[in-house]
């Protein structure tokens, strides 16, 4: 991670995943991790079933989310703050998962280039 990006990324993740809120940090971290691609949201045991479908949409096709999706969570007893935190956690996971993928490949490419240059 470049030194320029590091403090911003760490601050965002600490705020979203560790700050006290309506949901437990453990759940937010599980949601973030799953949305980042580490696990299939619909197979994540640590995420309650009623959340999985909604968070799958947040992660993969948020433009398909409808009023009734959020209403269903509220009907299950999730407060608006809980829905807010879990949606943000999923969105942050989806975004930062992509950043991690891109940077990993950029790093692999840089190392390959260094090796190629050294061998010339």
């Amino acid at each position, binding site marked *: 991670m470049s030194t320029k990006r590091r403090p911003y990324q760490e601050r965002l993740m600490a*705020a979203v995943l560790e700050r006290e809120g309506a949901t437990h940090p453990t759940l937010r971290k599980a949601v973030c991790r799953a949305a980042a691609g580490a696990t299939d949201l619909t197979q994540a045991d640590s995420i309650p079933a009623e959340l999985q479908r909604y968070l799958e949409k947040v992660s993969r096709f*948020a433009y398909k989310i409808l009023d009734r999706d959020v209403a269903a969570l509220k009907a299950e007893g999730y407060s608006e*703050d809980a829905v807010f935190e879990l*949606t943000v956690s999923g969105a942050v996971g989806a*975004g930062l*998962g992509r950043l991690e993928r*891109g*940077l990993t*490949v*950029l790093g692999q490419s840089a190392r390959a280039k260094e090796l190629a240059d050294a061998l010339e």
Partner: protein
Amino acid sequence: MRLNKLTNGQRLRHRLLLALMERMNGAPAPDVMRALLYRPDYFGRPYSAWLHAVMRGPSPWSMGERELIAAFTSHQNQCQFCVIGHAAAAARALGDASTVQAALEASPPAPLDDRMKAVLGLVKKLTLTPEDVEVADIEQVRDAGVGDAAIEEALTICALFNIINRLADAFDFDTSLGEQPEMVSKSADVLLKRGYAI
């Protein structure tokens, strides 16, 4: 918006700030501001600080190019709210609305330079199928003359807009501003002048 708290659950000082914005702009405060100012220490402030640094700080990319990357990412995510605002900002900054529109629609191929074409290709793949991004994709962008620092910055913009696109759609940010060209233009000016910090 789908959460009432995002509409009017902000602390008093932030509700006053939103009211002041509305008075100054002669239009309702955009839903993105309402969302960022709801419990800002939880998400809005750290996110906006990072976004402002990337979109308005020193960069190998011009401001307009960065707005184009943002609009293009948003288009890939089918996020109408974000496309409206950032396409307008990109068009304003680049002085060329038709190129921005062509870049988003990719039909006909937009008159972009090789650097921008290559990086938008990477952004598209990273947004839609991140698991398929590989070394060859990075090398293609490097071959077009984009250095690693510029690639990293484009990846960051892509990531940050993948976040906000999802929130805009999940919370159903109001897109009716898009039906008022004068307001879209005014919002673009504000975005270019003030940036993203809250």
